């Protein structure tokens, strides 16, 4: 399977006789595509993303970026973690957190690096908070710092592991819209893991539905809803509602099948 970013017959087993997280997963992501990965909990979607980022190795199969096998974190891909309280280093200011991703690889002066980081903070709406420490910010703001830090490295691809699941509803909605805006403006490719069907439908162009543990691809779904999307209008389109019902039924089937197999 050729393509921009491709996951090829990927399997992951945690130890020789241990749990199988995912089995024979294949799908391809096009350049500048927004794809969401959904599935029942424990289906290995986060594991899959971790492997795609080059942070852990698969038991079988491969992840390829432009045909080249990904075996370690690549500068073209940035990972955004669910646990922002850990991923955003609490001992650094907001500005220093963003600088950390660029200061060792560029030969620019400290001043230029800081200017670039400040510009990135401006993009995510945190320009006024550069000198704050993370503990002084809300969860939504901390996750914005993580996004700014990732974007400062000028990646092509964002790999996001349930980045908004720990946030309250209002902040989640705000960050979803921010993410869509950034995706369109910067021409990013996004692989977004979530367990929230509405979030997947609202954000993505395509949805990869994984089956229950061990996860494999159950279905790949196009979401033919126009951008820019709107939190109210998009969510009441007939296509949206139809796809939501379809996805919901599919995921319930997966959960039940998973239980039947376990029993």
């Amino acid at each position, binding site marked *: 399977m050729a393509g921009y970013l491709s996951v090829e017959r990927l399997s992951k087993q945690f130890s020789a006789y241990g749990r199988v997280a995912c089995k024979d997963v294949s799908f391809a992501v096009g350049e500048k595509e927004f794809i969401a990965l959904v599935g029942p909990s424990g289906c290995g979607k986060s594991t899959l993303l971790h492997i795609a*980022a080059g942070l852990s190795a698969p038991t079988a199969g491969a992840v390829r970026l432009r045909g080249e096998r990904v075996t370690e974190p690549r500068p073209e891909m940035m990972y955004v973690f669910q646990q922002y309280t850990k991923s955003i*280093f609490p001992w650094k200011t907001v500005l220093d957190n963003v600088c950390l991703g660029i200061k060792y690889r560029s030969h620019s002066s400290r001043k230029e690096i800081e200017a670039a980081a400040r510009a990135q903070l401006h993009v995510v709406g945190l320009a006024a908070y550069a000198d704050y420490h993370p503990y002084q910010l809300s969860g939504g703001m901390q996750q914005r710092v993580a996004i700014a830090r990732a974007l400062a490295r000028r990646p092509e691809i964002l790999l996001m592991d349930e980045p908004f699941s720990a946030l309250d509803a209002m902040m989640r909605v705000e960050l979803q819209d921010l993410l869509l805006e950034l995706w369109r403006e910067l021409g990013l490719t996004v692989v977004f893991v979530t367990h929230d069907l509405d979030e997947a439908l609202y954000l993505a162009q395509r949805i990869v539905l994984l089956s229950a543990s061990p996860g494999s691809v159950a279905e790949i779904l196009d979401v033919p809803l126009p951008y820019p999307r709107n939190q109210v209008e998009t969510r009441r389109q007939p296509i949206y509602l139809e796809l939501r019902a379809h996805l919901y039924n599919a995921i319930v089937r997966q959960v039940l099948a998973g239980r039947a197999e376990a029993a």
Partner: protein
Amino acid sequence: MIEHVIRWLQTTRGSGVILILLLLGLWQFSALYIMDTPTWPPVTRIFTAWYENVADGTLVKHLLATFWRQMLGYFLAVALGISVGVAIGYYRILYNLLEPLIEVFRPIPGPAYLPVLVLFVGIGHEMKVVLIMVASLFPILLNTYGGVRAIDPVQFDTARTLGLTTLQTLREVVLPAASPQILTGMRISLAISLILAILSEMIVSNDGLGYFTLLAERTFKVPDMYAGIFTLALFGYVLNRLFLIGESRLIRWHQESSGRG
């Protein structure tokens, strides 16, 4: 009125200071009127002795001698403890290699090294510095190890996705992440280093506060002896205070964020 007093008792430590002053008063009274013996001199005489010894430079000289050897041994322990602690926290192979050895040496009380060190290093300055270092080493080493082991995998993953090398990760992530535990170890060891400095001075030395205090006792200059002990109390207090100030500057992020959670 009563509410004010209760409020003052609850919100300040003024009552503790008053208690110390009261006890000193009781000491003074008992020394003057109840126990008239040379071993229990009145507080005023101790302060006079203290003032004389400060004024002629004796106490200052001995304090500096103690301070110098304590700091030397202490900072050697800090350097070695953090290095080894990080190394065994980072590399499982080194942990497996060194952990049994550490477990063998750790339970030995610091003073027990003294006779061996006297045999090998002699009775000079070096022996005391090494003794202080050895006794101060383990709290720092083990706390550093614990701190490094407790770092969340997400933080290592973050460092990798940001393209940091091992050394950059050490500097930017590992040391700051483990710093609360490292500082806890350093604070425990600071007290230990003073104990061992005084002990070694009492056993073999010709300067230092330990030497001064014991010599005063042996030459029946009892007020001088108490003056030495008072100086030690003050010195220990100031050291600990300075440490706490430095600590809260270094890890304000930790204290503030855990205080909120």
